């Protein structure tokens, strides 16, 4: 199971990085989102994947409980990632409105260098 997860994480990271190399702003954002998803999955996997009860003590049960910490971390990270993605989407919309383009090539150049 862990091995499969590692493959998926690698795939997410790889496609995330690939998308971030693209010229369109929106693809860069999708890339960053995939990258974040990869990290979330990694956090999950790092807490060991196993079947077990929720981490509340049950009398007479000695078997495994699942580790609650990675889940708590993931919830927090998801919320933060959500806020960041929402903000960068709005920012991209504003960039499109101001520059009339979403192509990073056309956004290049520093105007005040030429002055």
């Amino acid at each position: 199971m862990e091995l499969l997860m590692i493959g998926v994480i690698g795939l997410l990271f790889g496609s995330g990085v690939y998308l971030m190399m693209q010229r369109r702003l929106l693809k860069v954002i999708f890339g960053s989102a995939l990258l974040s998803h990869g990290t979330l999955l990694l956090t999950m996997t790092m807490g060991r994947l196993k079947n077990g009860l929720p981490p509340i003590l049950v009398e007479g049960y000695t078997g495994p409980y699942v580790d609650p910490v990675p889940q708590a971390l993931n919830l927090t990270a998801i919320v933060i990632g959500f806020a960041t993605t929402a903000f960068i989407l709005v920012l991209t919309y504003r960039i499109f409105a101001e520059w009339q383009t979403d192509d990073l090539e056309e956004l290049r150049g520093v105007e005040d260098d030429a002055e």
Partner: protein
Amino acid sequence: MMQSNWIILPVLFPLFGAILNFFMPKRVKAQKLVAATALTATLLYSIYLLSYTRTGAIAVFSASDWPAPFGIVFACDLLSAIMLVASGIVALAVLFYSFWSIDQGREQHNYYAFYLLMLMGVNGSFLTGDIFNLYVFFEILLISSYILMALGGEKEQLRESFKYMVINIIASALFLVGVALLYAVTGTLNMADIAVKVQAASDQGLLTVIAMIFMIVFGIKAAIFPLYFWLPQSYPTTPPAVNAAFGGLLAKVGVYVLFRIFTLIFINDIGYTHSILIFIGGVTMLLGVLGTVGQMDMRRILSFHIISQIGYMILGLGIFTPLALAGGIYFIVHNIIVKTALFLTAGVTDQLTGTTDLHKLGGLLKAYPALGLTFFLAGVSLAGAPPLSGFFGKFVLIVAGLEAQHYLVIAVAIGTSLLTLFSMMKIFRYAFWGQPREYQPQKYGRFLAPAAILVVLSLAMGIGAEWMLDVVSAAATQLLRPELYITAVLGA
């Protein structure tokens, strides 16, 4: 060790100030009052914390009284307190400068609220003793900084905000990767507990990899070689007040975290990790200052100097002797104050003349003598002339480097000092000397006051160097004995 619920106040003051401000977006006067009160209270409490931790005590706060390592802890040792005071001082100075320079549009769109939230993130990062909590505080300060950077919505500014955000999203993703791997190895998130488990871990090689991941993460945030490329582009597009807060404060939070984790957690393979830090420090300071050569804009030149100065701090951490660490901490404090002063004077120049382009300036010294004097003092302090604070920071670092026999990197450090002086003189020659352009005489005393106060502080830090060195040496000694921090947090 002392349990104290109060040490969370430097986080709470700005938080409540920000919440209050969100309720009154149109009442700018009230917003200013709230912001000034919150930050003054933070500074006063930070000074109290400094006097408390000066005795060597470490104050600890366990959230909801959950004992470490199960709950989230905040811990304030001497380094945290020093950073809190330094950040409190410049936060207040920049706030007052904002009163007189930020336009109404930004003010009515919650500029002060986000500024306070950013400082909450900064102070939280200084205080927290939990590595995931550190991630959260970093995100708070980053999201606020995205907003401060994009607020106003000018063309250039939006584009640079996008780059800044993407870079930081990548860094944050890597941060989380580092935290996850560290959790896999140690099974805990409490920094003191991690420090204990790291020493006992069986797979030391993996830990070095994790150390490198953290070095990259905070290297991006602190703008060290080879990860600084985003900084000189993005900072100058922001309003001067925001620029001063970013340049003076934000990059140094990354440096603080490097100081924390590379003295507490990743000390299992000093020969490897800290040699890399020395190398990075040397290259960063040299390349940063060389970047200024081609620039002809005050704010761009100053932005490159941020990078160069970060190199000195990293060097202090890399050499890893008590003296070097003390020099590094002294240098951080000095730099927070002086860098902010320089950006503020650049901001005042912008306000008075409408530009910071060196080609369009000239003879400012005649037209605005006080501005010239402030800039001159801050500039030579940055370059490291006695009796200003920059001299003592560099002096201690160089002595420490010579003692540890890192001759090459010390030669680079001294050369960089000269180049710094050279580029400060370049600004001075173009902008302040020469024939005055046609400037209207204006009253600018209050614009300049925050910067002037910071320069006076730099002078005081130089004259009172003995006392300052005493404090930073105590902080360095404390850092080099991580067991103090660990017992304070975890109990005996």
